[in-house]
């Protein structure tokens, strides 16, 4: 089980491949469910040039670890990989990766979705958008 906070751009597919190759789970997992969140060049009708992703170092790791523990108590999961970017992010760069390995598809799907929703709701990250107009705007929830 790995949780990575990453301050430079990452390649989600090589991250997953490398992680999976290192698992001693050949023949044991039947289902892998993956979500990747990627930075768009638009938001709320405005063009976005870049984004600064701030987080609460320490609390992020603590909250993500708690989410993983809860997820494991709800579904039979073989392994997890979570990667989240911080720092300056450009359009088309990945922001978040959640990957879940399990024997059966329902568990993989449910756990991946649950983790992403929990991460969106509780992991202490904040996005500051740099708009094409050069204004900065904090992303806010409604």
């Amino acid at each position, binding site marked *: 089980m790995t949780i990575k906070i990453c301050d430079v751009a990452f390649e989600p597919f090589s991250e997953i491949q490398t992680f999976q190759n290192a698992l001693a789970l050949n023949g044991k997992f039947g289902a892998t469910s993956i979500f990747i969140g990627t930075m768009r060049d638009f938001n709320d009708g405005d063009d976005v040039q870049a984004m600064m992703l701030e987080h*609460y170092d320490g609390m992020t790791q603590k909250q993500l670890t708690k989410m993983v523990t809860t997820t494991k108590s709800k579904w039979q999961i073989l392994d997890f990989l979570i990667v989240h970017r911080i720092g300056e992010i450009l359009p088309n760069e990945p922001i978040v990766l959640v990957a879940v390995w399990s024997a059966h598809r329902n568990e993989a799907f449910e756990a991946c979705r649950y983790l992403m929703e929990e991460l969106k709701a509780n*992991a202490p*990250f*904040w996005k500051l958008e740099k708009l094409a107009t050069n204004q900065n705007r904090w992303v806010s*929830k409604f």
Partner: protein
Amino acid sequence: MITIRYFGSLKETIGRSTETLSISELESLTVLDVWHYVNGDFPLAENILTALNMDYVTRSHVVNDGDEVAFFPPVTGG
């Protein structure tokens, strides 16, 4: 001594990211009390979240010496 931290847009509003508070009579001081100790009458907006030692808590949670209290707007990661 307790550590107080601000994040996101609140950090800009407050104009500080970290500060400490050393007071003698810490007993029964709540998260909300800590806010007003360092921010005076400035209101703690409804939507601001509060954490104690990196776990979410309510504003009425009691703070102890050595604790880290954090105030921040709704999170927007992922």
